Structures are given as structure tokens and as C-alpha cells.
């Protein structure tokens, strides 16, 4: 359909009256990348997306799309399209007219724009609903329509603001797969804002983890998960214990923690403590413990391993880990 384009932010800052929402960030996203802006609420991810879209003016810095500096261009001149949180479909227009809206604004003849809109509805599997009003659709269907509406201008970059947050968990996982498929087929750049680390891990080629208006870490999901750079990253991305090791903090994944018998000796690092909670998660047991020196940590035990030596809340356990699997945190 259309060519993908790269996105580059250079020293971009957004200041509101008395707070800095985005603080001098630099970011490069290669063309055709599925990029997730991830972070807790208020971290500046949505503001960043809105600046790329052109719905928020950057206080300073430059935004480059492909070869063009778009910092001062209106949204429709940037080659971007935005899919809004809770979709923002026009309630008075039928599905097909919602999708054709941007073309109508451009003065495309009625038959041409309806034909194009029908094609896009077909792409998102919504052809049978063309004459419905948005209020007559389910959340997932509305999302498909919003997607079609955003894609009709053949954007080089599609911006998605928490596209899955309004859906129930089952639908969320299905739509997630569809977004990924669509991005692969269209080959355009997707920038997707989310606060769900599992969503980002599942979708992204590149995760941009943000905190307090700054970028905390950038990388592929595996890079970020295997080598979190700071305590914030380790905690936000999940699945990690943050442990004191001398004066520094280290991160160790739950599934790389090992259990020692209560009397066994170990050459490596170890912590002893009592089990505080046990959760069965299907693929493993999630055992939370409180160490004798007061640290909270958790480990994953395979079902067979757990059955070999069942634990109860309050059991005394000793855990260890391979120092090679620990990451020093900055």
C-alpha cells in the first residue's frame, strides 16, 4: 500500500504549565518497525505519541519522519494517522462513512471514497457491518473500524494510543495478534502506546520503556527482559527479583532462581527465608518468600520440582542463583 517511514525524535521536550511531561528525549525508530512506548501512567508516553501525531506541539526539539522535519506540520500533512484510545468513531456516521471520512475531507468523489472504504473494511473483516452505526458494534468491532479509518489515508506511520485497553482479556489477545499480522502485511511503522508489559513484549520489535518523561531503556523485548538496566526497568518489565548484593542492586529472573534443600551447602550466592505465598500458575508455581534479611523475592518452580518437595506457607527455604544470570542495575 504505502511506504513505511522512519521516525526520529531529537531532543524533544514537552512542557506543560508547571511540569515537564517529556524531558529532552532522543529516539530513532527504523522504517517498518513495530515500536511500543511502554511505561506507567504519567510517564510521558502518550504525550510523546501525540507530539509525533501533531496533536501536541513540542516545546523544543525536532521530529523527523522519513526525510522530512514535521515538527510544525499539522497531523494530516505528516503522513501519520492516529487511532485514538476508545476509538473516537463519529457516532452519527455509519461504519463505511466513518472509514471514508478522511477522503471526504480531501474532496474525493463519493463513489471512489466508498469503494476504497469498502476495501479497508474487507481488510479488517468488517464488510458485513458497513451500514451500522458505531453504537451498534461491540468493542472489538469498533476497534477494527477505527483501524480501517486510520489506514485509509495510507499513512507511513500508524500511531495507536492504548488500542487494546478497552477490550476484555480474551479479545485483547486476539486483537493483539491481528495488529501484529496487519503490521507485517502492510509493512508500515507502528508506534503503539501501552502500559501493559506483556502487550509490549508480545508485539514489539522495539520497546521504548519510559519513566518520568525520560527514556529508561530501549531495545528488543529480549534485550530488555534479559538485561534490565535499572531497578525501575527490572520491576516494570516484571519477572525479576531486585536483590541487594553488597552495595549494588542486581536483578535475577524468577525462573533462574534455584531452590536448595534446607541443609545443603552452596558455593554461590544464597538467601534463606520463609515462604510467604504460593500461587499455582499452570506452567509453574510462583513461590514468594521473605528472606531473613528482610528482602521480598520470588521464584518459579516447575510442577515436577514442586511435587518432589512440596512447600507450604511458612516453610524454611534457601535459594541460590548462578551469578552469570544476575545483572547489575545502575
Amino acid at each position, binding site marked *: 500500500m504505502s511506504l513505511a517511514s522512519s521516525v526520529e525524535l531529537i531532543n524533544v521536550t514537552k512542557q506543560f504549565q508547571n511540569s515537564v511531561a517529556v524531558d529532552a528525549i532522543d529516539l530513532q525508530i527504523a522504517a517498518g518497525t513495530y515500536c511500543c512506548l511502554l511505561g506507567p501512567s504519567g510517564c510521558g508516553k502518550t504525550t510523546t505519541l501525540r507530539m509525533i*501525531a*501533531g*496533536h501536541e506541539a513540542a516545546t523544543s526539539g525536532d521530529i523527523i519522519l522519513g526525510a522530512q522535519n514535521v515538527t510544525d506540520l*499539522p*497531523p*494530516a500533512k505528516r503522513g501519520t*494517522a*492516529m487511532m*485514538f*484510545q*476508545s476509538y*473516537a*468513531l*463519529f*457516532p*452519527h456516521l455509519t461504519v463505511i462513512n466513518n472509514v471514508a*471520512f*478522511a477522503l*471526504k*475531507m*480531501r474532496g474525493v468523489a463519493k463513489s471512489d471514497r466508498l469503494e476504497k472504504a469498502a476495501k479497508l473494511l474487507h481488510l479488517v473483516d468488517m464488510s458485513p457491518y458497513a451500514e451500522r452505526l458505531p453504537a451498534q458494534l461491540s468493542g472489538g468491532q469498533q476497534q477494527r473500524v477505527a483501524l480501517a*479509518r486510520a489506514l485509509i*489515508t495510507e499513512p507511513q506511520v500508524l500511531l495507536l494510543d492504548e488500542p487494546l485497553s478497552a477490550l476484555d482479556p480474551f479479545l485483547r489477545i486476539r486483537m493483539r495478534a491481528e495488529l501484529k499480522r496487519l503490521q507485517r502485511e502492510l509493512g508500515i511503522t507502528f508506534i503503539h502506546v501501552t502500559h501493559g508489559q506483556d502487550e509490549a513484549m508480545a508485539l514489539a520489535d522495539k520497546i521504548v520503556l519510559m519513566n518520568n518523561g525520560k527514556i529508561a531503556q530501549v531495545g528488543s523485548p529480549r534485550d530488555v527482559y534479559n538485561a534490565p538496566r535499572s531497578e525501575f526497568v527490572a520491576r516494570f518489565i516484571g519477572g525479576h527479583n531486585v536483590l541487594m548484593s553488597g552495595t549494588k542492586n542486581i536483578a535475577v529472573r524468577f525462573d533462574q532462581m534455584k531452590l536448595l534443600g534446607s541443609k545443603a551447602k552452596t558455593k554461590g550466592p544464597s538467601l534463606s527465608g520463609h515462604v510467604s505465598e504460593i500461587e499455582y500458575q499452570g506452567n509453574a508455581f510462583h513461590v514468594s518468600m521473605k528472606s531473613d534479611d528482610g528482602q521480598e523475592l520470588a521464584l518459579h518452580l516447575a510442577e515436577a520440582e514442586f511435587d518432589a518437595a512440596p512447600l507450604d506457607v511458612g516453610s524454611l527455604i534457601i535459594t541460590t542463583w548462578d551469578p552469570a544470570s544476575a545483572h547489575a542495575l545502575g
Partner: protein
Amino acid sequence: MALAFTIFFVIPLVFVIIVSFWDYNEYQMIPAFVFRGYVESFEGCYTRLPELCTILATYLKTVKLCFIVWLITLLIGFTVAYFLAFHVKSKTWQIALSLLCTIPFWTSNVIRMIAWIPLLGRNGLVNSALIDMGLVTSPIEWLLYSEFSIVLALVHLFTFFMIVPIFNSMMRIDKRLIEAAYDAGATGWQTLWNVIIPLCKPGIVIGSIFVITIVMGDFITIGVMGGQQVAAAGKIIEVRLNALQFPAAAANAVILLGITFLIITMLNKLVDVRKEL
């Protein structure tokens, strides 16, 4: 609710309709079923066509006045509501400015109308100012006691009835829809025409019903501001009442009601008001 509706609305209306078919002489009403009230109102009208008789001309003038007032209140009301809803960002200012719009209602109708006279009269502020500036040599006559002054007073009074429902509709519009339109490349006017106006339709219709029903039945404002020179449908009823011709007055009331009902039905066709309340 139903009881109040019956006592204050249904019963009087039924009486008016019944009385409109009664017969009458100089001093009393005679229960009957005749069309005298209706027929006498239009006496000679048919034979004089295509020239309009007084009563037809009066109804036509009422409708015309109503249309002009409706159009102006709609334009002003929509603009003010738009400003309040989309340009005034703080809630406090929105409330303060909305209260400002209610100022015309702080004094009685009569005082408000009288207040126009020193402003618009032959020796009023406007005329003196125009003469002093040398723009005109003699006072402009049509400023007061004219259709102009009637429309002015009615617009002044009733624009607020347009502002409130339209503002209410506008406040219900999700601001992201406007952003979505902007994202799709719509200009300000395109957004207004394709998104805001369609979504304000219920407010526009409700405001229009307020204004049209009030203006159609008005005879005091039209009488005072028109210097009793301009007749309106409400005036016909008043004259008949003063002549103690109650059935004729009732007949004209029923005709007026019919016209108003017709206009509102047409407006209702445009939008399902019940759905929006």
C-alpha cells in the same frame, strides 16, 4: 405528573377546542357546534384571492417574524454556545459567562422593552449619535415601532433559549472526535459542518421549538415594540377576547396552535428528540 399534566394542560386545551365551535352574540356564548368562529375570521378572504385579506396577511406576517427571529437566534445562539463550549477552557468561566447570558431575565419583560425606547427612539441614543457623527441628517424612523425593533427585542429575549440546549449538546461531544477529524485532515469549517453541527442537531431542534412556540404566541412584545402598528396572530386573539367574542378567539387560538404544531412536527422529522432527552 400525569394529574398535573391533565389539569393544567389537557383540560384547558380541550375547553378551548370545544368553545371554538360554539356560537356567540354580542354579550354571550351559546353552546352549539358551528364553524362561525372559524368562518367569520376568514370572511371574504376567498373572494379576494390572490390579494391577501387582513387575517391571512397577519398570520403570514407572524410566520415571517417567527422565521426571522428563529434564524437570528439560531445563528447567535449557536455561535455563543460554540464559544462557551469549545473556546472557554475553564469550568468557572463557563459558568460565569453562562450566567451573563441570563441577564436579560433579571428584569421584567415590560422594563426590558421600555428600556429600548430611549435607545432607539427619534431622539434616542442611537439616532443622536448617528446625527452627531454626521452619518444621517434626520432621525431614522424605522429603529423603533417597526419590524426591526420587534425582531431586535425578541432576539434579545430568546437567544438564551437557543444557547442552553445547543450548549448542552456541545458539551456532550467527545473532544477526541474533534481531534479525530483534525487527524483526518478536516479544516475548522469541515469539522464544524461534518461533526459538530450533526451532533448538535438535538440541541438545535429543542432550542428552535422553544423560540418558535414563544414567538408564535407573543403579542405583548410585538405590540409594544411595534407601537401597536404591527399585528400578529396573538393580537387577533387578544382583540377578539376584548370584544368578548370568546368562540372566535378560541378558533384563532386553535388555528395558531395548528400552525405551531405543524412547524414542530417538521422539526421533529429532522431528529428524534425523544431519543436525546
